[in-house]
């Protein structure tokens, strides 16, 4: 089945899952607005997509520049004459030591993973709610399902994203729009290259394929790969007094 998305925005398109999603969308014939901080990376990606016969547009932007989002979002939708799919794939996971509490790293995580998502997805949700059509994809994580010892603010930022995406879904799904919460486990991307344990590791391309199929099917919550769903169901069921003694 061809993907039903013709005009797409991918925020965080310069690497990892965002890049893989953008590439696949372009292969399927969509026009994709590539949004990320690194203009040079986006220009490279645009060139590669064009060489393969696809069409991408480059909009350099730091997701922490929240005030710029409204105008940029409108500029992109005007440029593409509409929008079918909005993917927020920007995210950071700074490495932290077991006894490290770095406000700088935590603020960066919250700003990119939470506030950037709110700035972009609010725009998309308002538009899709009025249009009665359109799909929002938010890349959360299995890390948001439980407060673990490692990466406390990263996990919390993904919990925030889970609740925020669910709220958006409850706001606009009745109009005909859809909101997909994506919860990947470890994916082979630059973000995870220094992470030691990577169970059920999959490639960014495999993740992108699953995510776009879920988006096309207007799924609500999708674990990537699917095996994480039963695993996380078990992990969520572990009582806190046991969970705090575990090492993951």
């Amino acid at each position, binding site marked *: 089945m061809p993907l039903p998305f013709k005009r797409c925005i991918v925020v965080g398109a310069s690497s990892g899952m965002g890049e893989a999603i953008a590439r696949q969308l372009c292969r399927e014939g969509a026009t994709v*607005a590539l949004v990320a901080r*690194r*203009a*040079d*990376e*986006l*220009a490279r990606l*645009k*060139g590669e997509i064009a060489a393969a016969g696809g069409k991408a*547009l*480059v*909009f*350099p*932007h730091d997701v922490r520049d929240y005030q710029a989002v*409204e*105008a*940029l979002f*409108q*500029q992109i*939708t*005007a*440029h593409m*004459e*509409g929008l079918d799919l909005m993917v927020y794939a920007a995210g950071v996971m700074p490495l932290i030591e077991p006894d490290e509490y770095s406000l700088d790293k935590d603020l960066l995580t919250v700003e990119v993973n939470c506030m950037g998502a709110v700035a972009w997805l609010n*725009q998309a949700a*308002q*538009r899709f709610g*009025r*249009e*009665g059509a359109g799909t929002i994809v938010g890349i959360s994580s299995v890390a948001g399902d439980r407060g673990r010892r490692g990466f406390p603010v990263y996990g919390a930022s993904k919990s925030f994203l889970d609740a925020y995406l669910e709220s958006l879904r409850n706001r606009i799904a009745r109009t005909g729009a859809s909101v997909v919460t994506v919860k990947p486990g470890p994916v082979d991307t630059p973000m995870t290259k220094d992470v030691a344990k990577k169970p059920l590791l999959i490639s960014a391309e495999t993740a992108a394929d699953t995510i776009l199929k879920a988006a096309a099917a207007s799924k609500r919550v999708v674990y990537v790969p699917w095996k994480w769903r039963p695993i996380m169901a078990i992990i969520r069921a572990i009582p806190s007094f046991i969970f705090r003694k575990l090492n993951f």
Partner: protein
Amino acid sequence: MEDVSAVTAPTEAQIDKSAGFHPLPAANLERVDSFGMNLHAMSYVWRPSTVAGIHQVFAKARATGRKVGLRGAGRSYGDASLNCEQICLDLTRMNRVLSWDPQSGIIEIEPGVTLRQLWQYCVGDGWWPPVVSGTMFVTMGGALGMNYHGKNNFQAGPIGNHVLDFDLVTPTGELLTCSREVNPDIFHAAIGGFGMLGCFTRIRIQMKHVESGHLSVYAFSTRNFAEIIREFEARMDRADYLVGWIDCFATGAMLGRGAVHEAKYLHIADDPNPQQSLRVENQELPDTILGLLPKSIVWRFLKPFTNNAGMRLVNWAKYWSSATIGNRKTVRQSHAGFAFLLDYVPNWKWVYKPHGFLQFQSFVPAETAEKCFTSQIEACHRAGIVPYLGVFKRHKKDSFLMTHGVNGYSFALDFAITARNRQRLHALTRELTDIALRAGGRFYFAKDSTLDPVSARAYLGEDTIREFARMKRRCDPDGMLHTELAKRLFAEDLLNT
């Protein structure tokens, strides 16, 4: 943190972001639908209620580098009033009657006045709009932009024939008064000019005097296209209105079978109480069927029949009743009751949810009509997509630049769009277009959603398009007025793209 210092900075050509972009207020962003529900746009909508308000919208468009699409009641079936991601100038709030003279029957209105407002305003004084569409919910600004026609086109021509003059505000801020004497070229181009030259802000129309609120309506059935054309030709000199319905499911010798309604104005001697029949309340369409079933829910009862088998049955039943119990009967009907067939079942188009429908209407010279329409129905049957409704009308030529008028016939076909037939339907409409073009046919912007630039050029001709483009440059030198239809058909000629 990454090191980007070694990477070459991208060139400007590689970046699509523009520093000079001016956003419009998100509060004005709305979904704007085509009447056929098969197309929509997200647009920034403004609804001014004064001429000054229109000037402000044009000024805002200029300041933000946006295009402006004009929209009335949104009754065009296709993309004629859609303008993706740009400004939609909705004129429905400019809906005042500026002056009315019941002696001469001349009315002066703003563009957002609906046909319903118009007839309700005048009918009590013995005046009826000279040309009415099948629905009363169009605005008169939209009616002029499309130069709409009615069931009396063969007698009265399109609405433009009855316009005395109008004011047109252009995107440059100019206010042009146009009539057959003053700015006659703009008069004949803006009427039927699908909102490309400017915005009507004042329209003066000569209404038609009627002596009774009733029409005498004679109904009869016809067995094929040859017969219906023969009947129309024989009756058009003495009829005031003629309209045909065609059962598009019929094949073989009965291909083109249908029914005709011929209506004539009543004279004062024929109506015992014209003052009574001309009262608005005696023209209104009833709210219920048989006094019981609210019409607002009728579409829900029709929905189960909106498929090939159901519509075959409905068409057969209609033909059977037209050929038997309803055949060769004369009844008296109010003007509104006869004219506004589309308004009998409110929201009837919802039977085509969720994918909507499209109407394909071609206007073909009388001498080629039978062969053309027969070929079109045969093509539909071959494609396995049969129109659920076929409407047949007689027309005449007119003097407007972008006219759809011909000395001949039109055949309007309603096609349901489904999840599976979209591509086949697109191919079918291309074939129907080619058949009509070979027969010397023309097309109507209010209905169209399927033509391409080559087909538009083929029926309008190079000279006409060049002349219209000249007019466009004069009224709208920056190409600010823009719609999806204009982009689809005339991007190179009109929009400098």
